[in-house]
């Protein structure tokens, strides 16, 4: 090997190692600074109370409204997206299995929808709301977030369902099942772990997104009593508290960010754990 080649070899190797550890380092810094800032200002009061009068000037209270609001919104949207998403994912993998071209078109369409920024969904959701004469509400927020996580849900389920071997499908048919039985009883059971991962992934997206609920879910200091009332969400509460000039309120924004990050970390840990546990029900070929 010539010397120049050796130098080039070493140079790029060093660059590669550097960028890999750089990414890990950045992740470490982000997690560290969120925990460091958040842990200082988090308190039991914050987690268990709704904002009191003058909360946004540094008086007492907490972000329970935002925590519960976000959970309600994300649960609602995830359930709705599951009800619409699962049948679509099953349909393209069971009913359309011989129509490769059509399936590719549908997948392509889903990828396109996946790429649409969430603020566009927010604006569209707002347009729909005005069209139907709705106010900002939990319902409008759920509908908007559902649209936003639907492609994520379907495509991640689809990635798992497409790995189900064709032999399993043939076996089901030869034993006399019809197509929808094969889909809902065989395919879902074979892919439980993947479906759980897809649901949790969508839940994480739903709870973390702010741009789509900005117009549609509104914001309130109270806990909502019905679907038609506005609801507070964690990302927006972080955003609003951070815009405050009062340092105590800003500190609460860091604590809220810690809460949100923790929820998302727990969800993603769960999705790995559950995925492994349900692996056993899978038939291996």
């Amino acid at each position, binding site marked *: *090997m010539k010397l120049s*080649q050796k130098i*080039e*070899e070493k140079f*790029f*190797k060093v*660059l*590669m190692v*550097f*960028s*890999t550890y750089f*990414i890990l380092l950045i*992740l470490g*810094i*982000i*997690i560290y*600074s*969120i925990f460091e800032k958040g842990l200082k200002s988090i308190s039991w009061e914050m987690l268990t109370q709704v904002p009191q009068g003058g909360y946004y000037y540094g008086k007492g209270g907490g972000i329970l409204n935002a925590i519960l609001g976000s959970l309600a919104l994300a649960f609602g949207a995830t359930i709705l997206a599951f009800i619409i*998403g699962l*049948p*679509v994912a099953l349909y*393209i993998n069971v*009913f359309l299995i011989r129509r490769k071209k059509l399936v590719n078109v*549908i997948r*392509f*369409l889903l*990828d*396109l*929808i996946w*790429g*649409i*920024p*969430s*603020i*566009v969904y927010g*604006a*569209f959701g707002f*347009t729909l709301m005005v069209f139907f004469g709705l106010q900002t509400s939990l319902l409008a927020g759920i509908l908007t977030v559902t649209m936003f996580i*639907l*492609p994520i849900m*379907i495509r991640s389920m689809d990635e798992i369902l497409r790995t189900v071997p064709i032999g399993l499908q043939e076996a089901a048919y030869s034993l006399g099942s*019809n*197509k*929808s*039985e094969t889909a809902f009883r065989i395919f879902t059971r074979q892919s439980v772990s993947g479906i759980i991962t897809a649901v949790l992934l969508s839940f*994480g997206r739903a709870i*973390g997104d*702010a*741009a789509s609920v900005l117009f549609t879910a509104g914001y309130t200091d109270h806990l909502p009593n019905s679907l038609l009332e506005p609801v507070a969400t964690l990302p*927006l509460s*972080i*955003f609003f508290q*951070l815009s405050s000039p009062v340092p105590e309120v800003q500190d609460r*924004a*860091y604590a809220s*960010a810690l809460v*949100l*990050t923790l929820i*998302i970390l727990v969800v*993603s840990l769960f999705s790995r754990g559950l995925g492994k546990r349900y692996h056993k029900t899978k038939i291996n070929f």
Partner: protein
Amino acid sequence: MHLLNRHQRHEVNYTWMIISLLIVAFLPFLLFLGLYLKSFLLLHDYSLMDLIFSKEWKPTNGKFGFYPFIVGSIWVTLLAMIFTAPICLLTAIYVTQYTKKTFLRIMHPAIDILAGIPSVVYGLWGILVIVPFIARYLGPWMGVKTMGYSILAASFVLSIMIIPFILNILIEIFQAIPTELKEAALSLGATPWQTIKHVLLKKALPGIIAAFGFGLARAFGETMAVLMVVGNVVRLPKSVFDPGYTLPALIANNYGEMLSIPRYDSALMFAALLLLVVSLFFNLVMHFFIVKYNKF
């Protein structure tokens, strides 16, 4: 006892599937139509060229020039890509070609966590770390006076946010390259880096372009994190240390007052429509690169 017999149940399930599929299939068209109808008011009164290339943004006087926002968006997005592209490419090559499988087992959760962090939290982190860093160190060091809230801050934060997105695609692409190809090059006496440079990168090029394209589209539409650190000043930025404004930030910042000024809501919906069109266009073009890549 079941309420319905199997054939009836099949019918119910089948109808449910078809309805869901139709909902999903019509969604993008509905999005486009809804936003188009809403921005029609604006498009009716102004020409498209005027809207895009006019610099004046004074909604109260009926002046809607989107040029500063478009330029701001392009600056932020391109800078973010310039920062993130080499790092993602080098990392993807490293973890797929040089390290053992176990290393990927550390990398994957790390990428997942990066991807899972919500954009508001990235924005908050930007305010905590990046903005002061630029205001106190980078700005003075470069001899510029800056608040820190700037195009540069936004693109720093953005470049980190899109790392997991691009890296995942790149890793998949490099893993899909057949090992034989690599072995052939190595057995002809090529060094590892020569193999990567002349064989792998050439083979993966359409895929790499697609990964960057998808990342670009993602970055272009990112809202909250950018909004929080970009400064939100309607002015053409002269340098990267100047504050700017982006299209998504424009929509998000003004939703409260948009109903009180005539044609303002229409203008914001037009901004959303622009975002939608840009995102669809990019994803469409990049999809063909991926198709081309898969043909090999």
